[in-house]
């Protein structure tokens, strides 16, 4: 029985354990199913995600910078160029014993302890195949020493980097702008065509035509292992150099304009009336754009530029907002004739002040012409620049009519100039005043607009554009500075100039009357611009202006001598020439100083002495 019991016991045990074996087999199969599910999830459902991650691990792109396009003037003279600076680079993948190599460089006195320290701190921020710059901007002597010892320094390279250079720094600074390191904000919207340490145009042509000038990055696709070593190269696409850009600027004229203007604060613009091309555009004071390039590192000069109270960085030609002042008069006169409010024969008595019929407020003649000009007609009102006449005309026209003609001449709206950051200016009207000032429009406001003061604000480029329209009898092209671009294969892309909506008058003779009056400003004895016309070898037509900065209160008499410098009147002058067949429209504006007429004359002389038109104009003068 003992045996039987033992056997029974064994049998029970066997059954119990066998049952457990059966369960365990099920558990094992279940666990395997869990693993299968996990693998299905990883390898089938999420395959794409992991494939991309794997590729991102494995493939890296090494970019190559494109050469930035050059900038030329209309005659092919270089305005912006690239020059090479040399950097000392080390590639850690090749320079395996970097300590020894760096020590050798130090003994050659090429690098200092500080630069070694900087490299050691930064070296693990880069992948080993990436060249790390140890020293920037090597001198010629250093480059020479280095090239002799280069063969014994594996992994050390001299790399050339192209850096922007401007041969006419102060003269062209506002037009060209400058390049600087790309900012993070800019990097975000550049379609990955930029490297984080690349140069990008910051203002001016460099910014406006950035897309053309920059070119397209090239790249090399390489396979990289976990240590960052390049295993092999898969793909190489060379960079596309940026296009060369030709401007409408004539650098010779620009140079002379700058010479003429350089002792003042202000702007001068020479516009070709036939095409709208900007031949010369100067804003003074200028600044040295080479200082602003990151590689220059001339902090002292940089500080000077930024701390200069005259704000040299400020492009007065397109950003400066000034009262339009007396140059408004011919434009309003056109509207007066068109709306039949005045005729050339209409005469007004000018006592030196004007009073609205319904009020006692006296509007003084701002040119301090005490006593007035007596009886004046349209011609004389422009020649002598009578404020009284235009107070009256403004009263007759009303603000809406004035707003309409000024807008047609391009005031208060964009000139569409192809430069960065143009100011729009302001031509007020009733609704503008209600919205911004929460005040109704007074009749007095209209009168101030009538002499180009009050809320009216304009930029020198608008002034030049309006002069061009006047010269062409209401026609013309939008001012522009871009002439053409040539890409690296030589194909040319020219500027598509757009015409300004023409101003049509019911009678063409109106233009002639105003032109004659503007000629009178320069060539008649009483003309306010007689300084311009003195001994002029050609006939021109223009208008002077004196921009008031401090607003005049009623009958205040101002002591002219004691006005602080920055509140003194601006002086502006617009002119087109030659009179019969206008070629150029010029606008000159100088801040806090009189005398713009003479500057305009010198600028015109500079233009005509170059083109040789001078003689022909002599003949024209004799004929008339």
């Amino acid at each position: 029985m003992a045996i039987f019991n033992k056997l029974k016991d064994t049998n029970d045990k066997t059954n119990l354990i066998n049952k457990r074996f059966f369960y365990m087999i099920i558990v094992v199969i279940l666990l395997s199913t869990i693993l299968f599910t996990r693998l299905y999830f990883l390898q089938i459902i999420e395959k794409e995600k992991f494939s991309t991650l794997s590729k991102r691990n494995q493939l890296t792109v090494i970019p190559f910078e494109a050469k930035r396009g050059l900038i030329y003037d209309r005659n092919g003279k270089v305005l912006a160029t690239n020059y090479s600076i040399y950097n000392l680079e080390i590639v850690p993948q090749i320079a395996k014993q970097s300590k020894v190599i760096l020590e050798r460089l130090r003994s050659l006195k090429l690098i200092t302890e500080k630069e070694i320290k900087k490299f050691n701190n930064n070296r693990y921020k880069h992948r080993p195949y990436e060249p790390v710059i140890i020293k920037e901007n090597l001198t010629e002597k250093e480059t020479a020493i280095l090239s002799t010892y280069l063969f014994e320094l594996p992994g050390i390279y001299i790399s050339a980097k192209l850096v922007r250079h401007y041969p006419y720094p102060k003269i062209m600074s506002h037009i060209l702008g400058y390049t600087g390191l790309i900012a993070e904000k800019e990097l975000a919207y550049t379609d990955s065509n930029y490297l984080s340490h690349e140069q990008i145009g910051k203002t001016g042509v460099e910014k406006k035509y950035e897309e053309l000038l920059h070119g397209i990055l090239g790249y090399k696709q390489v396979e990289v292992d976990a240590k960052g070593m390049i295993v092999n190269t898969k793909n190489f696409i060379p960079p596309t150099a940026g296009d060369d850009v030709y401007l409408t600027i004539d650098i010779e004229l620009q140079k002379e304009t700058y010479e003429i203007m350089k002792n003042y604060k202000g702007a001068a613009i020479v516009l070709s009336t036939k095409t709208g091309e900007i031949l010369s555009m100067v804003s003074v004071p200028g600044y040295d754009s080479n200082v602003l390039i990151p590689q220059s590192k001339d902090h002292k000069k940089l500080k000077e530029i930024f701390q200069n109270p005259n704000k040299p960085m400020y492009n007065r030609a397109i950003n400066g907002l000034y009262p339009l002042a007396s140059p408004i008069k011919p434009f309003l006169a056109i509207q007066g004739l068109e709306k039949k409010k005045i005729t050339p024969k209409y005469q007004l008595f000018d006592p030196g002040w004007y009073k609205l019929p319904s009020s006692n407020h006296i509007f003084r003649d701002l040119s301090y012409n005490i006593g007035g000009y007596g009886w004046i007609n349209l011609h004389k009102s422009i020649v002598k620049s009578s404020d009284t006449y235009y107070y009256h005309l403004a009263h007759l026209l009303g603000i809406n009519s004035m707003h309409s003609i000024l807008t047609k001449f391009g005031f208060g709206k964009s000139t569409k100039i192809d430069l960065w950051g143009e100011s729009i200016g302001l031509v007020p009207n009733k609704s503008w005043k209600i919205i911004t000032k929460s005040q109704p429009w007074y009749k007095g406001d209209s009168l101030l607009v009538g002499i180009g003061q009050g809320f009216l604000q304009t930029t020198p480029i608008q002034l030049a554009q309006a002069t061009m329209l006047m010269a062409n009898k209401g026609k013309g092209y939008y001012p522009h500075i871009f002439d053409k671009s040539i890409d690296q294969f030589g194909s040319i892309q020219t500027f598509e100039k757009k015409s300004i909506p023409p101003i049509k008058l019911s009678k063409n003779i109106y233009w002639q009357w105003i032109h004659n009056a503007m000629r009178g400003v320069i060539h008649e004895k009483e003309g306010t611009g007689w300084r311009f016309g003195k001994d002029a070898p050609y006939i021109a037509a223009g208008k002077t202006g004196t921009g008031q900065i401090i607003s005049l209160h009623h009958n205040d008499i101002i002591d002219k001598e004691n006005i602080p410098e920055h509140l003194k009147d601006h002086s502006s002058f617009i002119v087109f020439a030659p009179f019969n067949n206008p070629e150029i429209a010029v606008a000159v504006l100088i801040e806090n100083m009189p005398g713009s007429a003479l500057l305009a004359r010198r600028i015109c002389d500079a233009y005509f002495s170059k083109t040789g038109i001078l003689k022909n104009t002599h003949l024209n003068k004799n004929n008339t």
Partner: protein
Amino acid sequence: MKLINQLNIAIRSRKNNFAYHSLWDKLHLDGPLFTLILFLLICGILLLYSATDGNLTKIFQQLYKIIFGLIIMIFVAQIRPYQFKRWTITLFIIGIILLVFVNFAGTGKGAQRWMDLGILKFQPSEIMKCAVPMMISLLISRNSLPPKIPYIMVVSLFIIIPCYLILKQPDLGTALLILFSGCTVFILAGIKLKQIFYSLLTLISLSPLLWSFMHSYQKTRVITFLNPHHDPSGKGYHIIQSKIAIGSGGALGKGWLNGTQSHLKYLPESSTDFIFALCGEEFGILGCILLISVYTLITCRTLYLAQFMNDTYLKLLCGTLGITFYLYALVNIGMVSGIFPVVGSPLPLISYGGTSVLTIMVSFGIIMSANSYRKLPYEY
């Protein structure tokens, strides 16, 4: 009496059946099991060739170890099963002594696991992988089944002591696996599900205590497991890269020797602990399923064979060894595919490295011996 007669007939018939029919029987090996093991070993060599970029010295080293392992397995298979029972206690005591010794005089990278015997280095914890299941099986099979709770408590000491010593080395992975192998014996011995549930509950409630015993590197491993993207280039790097390797393999894989993750060395430890990721990358889900299926089959075959054994000790031992083998594979694959934390445990029979192959071969030797002699009454 009728029953005794039947039994006598049964015993006689078994005796009659006990004849060496095939070569397998003559060698005391189990054909299917041996084939499956051989298949895994060949897979291991192929994967290793890819993982080491065709480094022949490494491959030959591994081949020698495999051949040595196979010889050991065949040798162990020839030993009569009662010998294992006889030597169980001695082996266990030797193992404990070596563990104590290695805790004071061991060498190893940061962890004291290795013992230098001059010719070969080995880990005493490997002995315990066999010795603990043997010891527990012996203790359990002495008494009636299922074991009573107080008895289990006493027997548990024989698991906890070696586990504690291994944890001190520190080697969390092995300690846990040995703990599990000990518990497997209890489960096979038929403790009730309720009891398993309660003990799991106590284990969970004790886990904060375990946490305080763990080394900081073990703690970071658990944290990393819970959130691998917490520090992608640091601690989570292993798991992320191995998931990328497996996931990018897709259905059919990138092809043998074409895995970019491993060949460009993004995948760490691609020849040892993370070799399964390499399999996933180069052979896709197909290769993975094949491999897991083979592991499952080996375990099922072991359990199937254990069914027919007469002796409770051998039954428990073989079952436990088979399940433990599966557990090794499960833990490794689970870790590589990101469902378990990173514990340094190799993929059995495939990962590069000798000691684990030897231990597993010995355990299969035991299984085959027990299977081969099962037809004889135990005492023979």
